[in-house]
Every structure is written in structure tokens, then in C-alpha cells.
């Protein structure tokens, strides 16, 4: 007993958690490599490796131009985007579930998705191109959350409750706005475009999407990762947390900003992809426990892997390509239901 025993117990737990994280990391990398190879036009592994290496070192091309185009303009951006978006949505979900002390909240609890949907719908009505749609979706997502936070600041009472209530209300406002844009949209081309956007899809992923989304994503993900231990304290309630030296208002605001940036950036380039942000943190918690120091990286990896897997299913199994927003629920929900019933029997 005495000094050292505590860190020993802690280290034992850490080793187990780290092993899980490493395993998740390996799975994600393996999935990514697999995803590079397969598709309607399979590309052999040696070509993929050399094409990637060819970016930094001169290698004589033994692949066709068509293969290079497919790889760099279609497959690579799609795989990277699936990884990034899955990672972002899951980490934002984990952060919000901790910050709002509620395991049922998802990244769009503060209206980011509905705001983005409204922005995208307006852009489609205005006849803007894909860059315009993404930009307006991102802008409106940020604007919506700012509005929610401002309303919550003006309201009295429990900050957690007012933020969530304001989020639900403002969301429904923008959701009505989306319905209105559908009503006045041209039913031959604009309406299907809006409907399709709302379902969420990685089909049209372009290198430009990544350039657009990566900076806010990187900023938000780093912030969430750095602050992850503090989320533990926040889950004990504001007053308790503040007697432990945490400035709860400021911390919650920083987390909201970070989570909003990653959510808005994701939704802006892919449309609405539900489910990942709600359920991946739960699955991670079952796997690795509630400590956010481990939960946050686990959610990030699991979210990335899950969305990539579902996207692979989407593009491999069906020629018509079911939008990923639908598939995440089709694949994820039954799996989750299986897990919680299994948990109950234990």
C-alpha cells in the first residue's frame, strides 16, 4: 500500500483502454485500405500504394490515367470525408452528451443540422452550385447555434436546461423553414435536390469538400480532444464542478463552439447524417467506459470507422447507392438494439 498503488491501479486500467484504442485504430486503418481498393472499378493494392507514394516521390506510372482519376478525384476524397465526418459527429455527440449531462442528446441538439438544412435548401432555391450550398449550410448552422446560445443566455434558470430547450425550439423553427422551402421549390428539380440533400450522402464527395471542411474540423476536434478530461467534471453538475475550480460557463461555451464547428462542417459537405452522433458515443461507452479521457478518442475512431463501413456498404452492395443517412440507421439501430438487450441479460 501507500504511494504508487494508485498509479498502479490506474495504469492497469489505462493499459486495457489503450489496447482497445489501438485495436480500434488498426481496424480503422484496415477499413480505409480496404475501401481504397474496392468499388465498381477495383484498383489493385500495389497501384494504390504507388499512387499514394507517387505524390511525394517520383514513381513511374504503371496505372492508367482513368485509375488515377478515379482514385484521386472520387475514391480518396470519399474515404477521407467518411472518416472525417464520422469522427466529427461522434466526438461532437460524446462532448454534448457529457456537457449536457444527458445520454440522449446528439450533435444537432442545438439546431446545427436544421440550420444547415435550411441554409442548403435556400441555396438550392437560389440555384447556387455545390460550393454555395455547402457555404450557406455551414453559415446557417453556425448562425442557428449562435441564436440558441443567445436565447439561452437571456433566459433565466438552469443553464443546461435552457440551452437544450432553446435548441429544440430554434430547431423546430428552422425545420418549418425547410418545409416552406420545399413548398415553394420547383417540383421537377429543386424539390428532389432538397430531399436528397436532407437524406445525407457522401456520393458527390470532391477534394474541394475536404479543403472546405478540414480547417473548422481540425480546430474543433483538437479542442474537444484537449478538453476531454474536463468534461468528466462537468457531468457532475455546474455547482459541484465550479467548487472544483472549473469555470463551467466558459468551458461549456468552448465545447459548444468546438462541437458546432465540427458538426456544421460535416453537415455542410454531406447533408444530414443522423444516428452516428447519438449512438456511437454509447457504443464507445459500453466498450471503454465513461471516462472522457478514453471515451473521446474511442468515439472519434469508432465514428470514423463506422461511417466508412456504412459508406462501403452503400457503394458496394447497391448500384443505386442508398443515401448513407438512411443506411446508418438501417445498420446501426438494430445493432444497437441487439447490444442493449444483450446488456440487460448479463
Amino acid at each position, binding site marked *: 500500500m501507500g504511494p504508487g498503488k494508485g498509479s498502479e491501479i490506474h495504469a492497469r486500467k489505462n493499459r486495457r483502454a489503450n489496447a482497445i484504442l489501438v485495436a480500434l485504430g488498426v481496424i480503422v486503418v484496415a477499413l480505409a485500405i480496404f475501401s481504397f481498393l474496392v468499388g465498381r472499378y477495383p484498383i489493385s493494392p500495389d497501384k494504390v500504394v504507388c499512387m499514394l507514394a507517387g505524390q511525394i516521390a517520383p514513381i513511374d506510372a504503371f496505372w492508367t490515367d482513368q485509375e488515377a482519376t478515379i482514385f484521386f478525384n472520387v475514391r480518396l476524397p470519399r474515404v477521407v470525408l467518411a472518416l472525417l465526418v464520422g469522427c466529427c459527429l461522434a466526438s461532437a455527440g460524446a462532448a454534448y452528451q457529457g456537457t449536457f449531462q444527458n445520454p440522449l442528446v446528439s450533435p444537432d441538439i442545438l439546431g446545427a443540422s436544421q440550420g444547415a438544412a435550411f441554409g442548403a435548401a435556400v441555396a438550392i432555391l437560389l440555384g447556387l452550385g455545390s460550393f454555395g450550398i455547402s457555404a450557406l449550410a455551414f453559415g446557417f448552422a453556425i448562425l442557428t447555434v449562435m441564436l440558441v446560445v443567445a436565447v439561452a443566455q437571456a433566459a433565466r434558470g438552469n443553464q443546461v436546461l435552457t440551452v437544450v430547450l432553446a435548441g429544440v425550439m430554434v430547431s423546430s423553427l428552422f425545420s418549418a423553414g425547410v418545409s416552406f422551402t420545399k413548398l415553394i421549390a420547383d417540383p421537377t428539380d429543386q424539390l428532389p435536390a432538397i430531399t436528397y440533400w436532407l437524406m445525407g450522402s457522401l456520393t458527390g464527395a470532391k477534394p474541394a469538400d475536404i479543403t472546405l471542411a478540414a480547417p473548422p474540423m481540425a480546430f474543433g476536434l483538437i479542442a474537444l480532444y484537449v478538453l476531454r478530461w474536463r468534461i468528466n467534471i462537468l457531468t457532475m453538475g455546474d455547482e459541484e464542478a465550479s467548487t472544483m*475550480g472549473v469555470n463551467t460557463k466558459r468551458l461549456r461555451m468552448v465545447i459548444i463552439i468546438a462541437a458546432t464547428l465540427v458538426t456544421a462542417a460535416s453537415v455542410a459537405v454531406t447533408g444530414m447524417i443522423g444516428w452516428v452522433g447519438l449512438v456511437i458515443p454509447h457504443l464507445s461507452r459500453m466498450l471503454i467506459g465513461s471516462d472522457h479521457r478514453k471515451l473521446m478518442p474511442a468515439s472519434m475512431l469508432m465514428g470514423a470507422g463506422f461511417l466508412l463501413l456504412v459508406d462501403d456498404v452503400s457503394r458496394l452492395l447497391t448500384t443505386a447507392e442508398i443515401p448513407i443517412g438512411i443506411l446508418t440507421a438501417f445498420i446501426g439501430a438494430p445493432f444497437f438494439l441487439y447490444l442493449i438487450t444483450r446488456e440487460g441479460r448479463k
Partner: protein
Amino acid sequence: MSVKIENLSFSYGSHEVLRDISIDVEEGTLVNVLGPNGTGKSTLFRCILGLNRNYTGSIIVNGKDIRTLSIRERAREMAFIPQSHKPVYDYAVLDVVLMSSGAGAGAFFSPKKSHVDRAYEALERVGIGFLADRPYTRISGGEQQLVLIARALAQNASTIIMDEPTSALDYGNTVRVLSCVRQLSEEGLTIIQSTHQPDQAFLYADKTLVLHEGHVLAYGTPKETITEGLIGKIYGVEVEVNSLYDDKVRVCVPTRELARR
């Protein structure tokens, strides 16, 4: 160190909750705060902890006016032990204790090995080191309360405020938790805790602060303050205060029940 409160008043809107409270708590004292529900005990604690800001008067903790301290600086001076409650998520006991280790540190702090060891030592100090890797939600209420005490100890503050630490505990756990608190005060910590049981004050406290309708009705040793008249006044029940074991302890017994026997 010490807590010195002078002319403290506090109102929620037009409703005055605390009126002109002045007390001096010396270093290493265990103070029991007694008073019926709604008399301002929790409000007083919230003021001392800096959670209620717009009070009048002054609160000096360890020589520092808490009004001038930041959240972080306050956490260095005082720790708070709430009533044990079930957190939404299931943390390991050691991780719950570890939460206080960042008190006073910067925003990017994350606990190191030395903090983990200190957290474990705190668990050992309250006698539950063996629970370190158990899930916090799956230990008993008394054990949870001890974990929160350990968390306050790991915060390394010299003053501890406890809000009714035993109100939800069974008899055995109540005795265990209170004797642990008593022990800590003997080791030099200044502890202010609220309670509903006058008998507990006789057994465990150095001093008793009696709050009644927002002001100080009495402040002194338990034997001086807790009298038949005072209990009748604040709780509206007639009791007989009995002395036991050469006046080492006293107990309150409701006279109405004695008359029935």
C-alpha cells in the same frame, strides 16, 4: 486556516434569506450548522463557496476575501462535499476522486501520475482504498459519501464545506462517515457541515451554529447552544436534553413520547 464571516446578508429578489450573520470559525474546528429546512443553511454555504455572489458583508476564508477570488483560486482554499448523488455516467471511484485534482490548475490540465497517487492516498485516508477501481454507481451510499470526502481531500484545500453529508445514509454509514469527518478535523482541517440531528452535534462537533429564519440564533459549543428552549424554538418540539457518561455526550428525547410510556 479559518473562516470569518461579518455582517453577511443575502436576498433572493425581495426575499431576505440571510440577515446579518457574523461568525468566526477558527482553524481545525468542526462546526455543525443546525436549523430547520428553509432556514438558510444551504444559502449560507453557497455564499461561502462563492456560488452566490451578490451578498452584502464580507466572507474571509484563510485571510482572503472570497469576493476577490477567481473560481480557480476559491477551489484552492475550499472544497465542497455535496450530498451523494448518482452521476449520469458511471466512473471508476478513482476517476471520481481525480476530478478535484485540477482545482487551481489551468484549462489544459490533465491529471498526471502524481495526482493519481494523491487521489489514491485520499481514498486510503478515509479507509476505502480497496474501492479504487470499482464503478462509483455500484457502491453503497455511505461509500459514495466517503468517496466524495476523499475527493475533497485530494483537492488539498484546508477548508471543507459539507451539505448534509449523512441525510440519505443508514445508521451504520452515518456513524462511519461522521467519525471519518471528526478524524479529519482532528488532523487540522476546518470543516463546516449542516445536519438535521442535534444529537450528532453533541457527538461530533466542536461548535454548533444555529440558524433560525436567516439569522444566527446561537453559536458556541454544542453544550452551550443546544438547550431544551432552543430546540423548542427552532423545531417546535418539546425535548428533554439528557446527559450521559458523566456529560461526555448528551441526547435529546422528545418529552411527548416520554409521557406516553
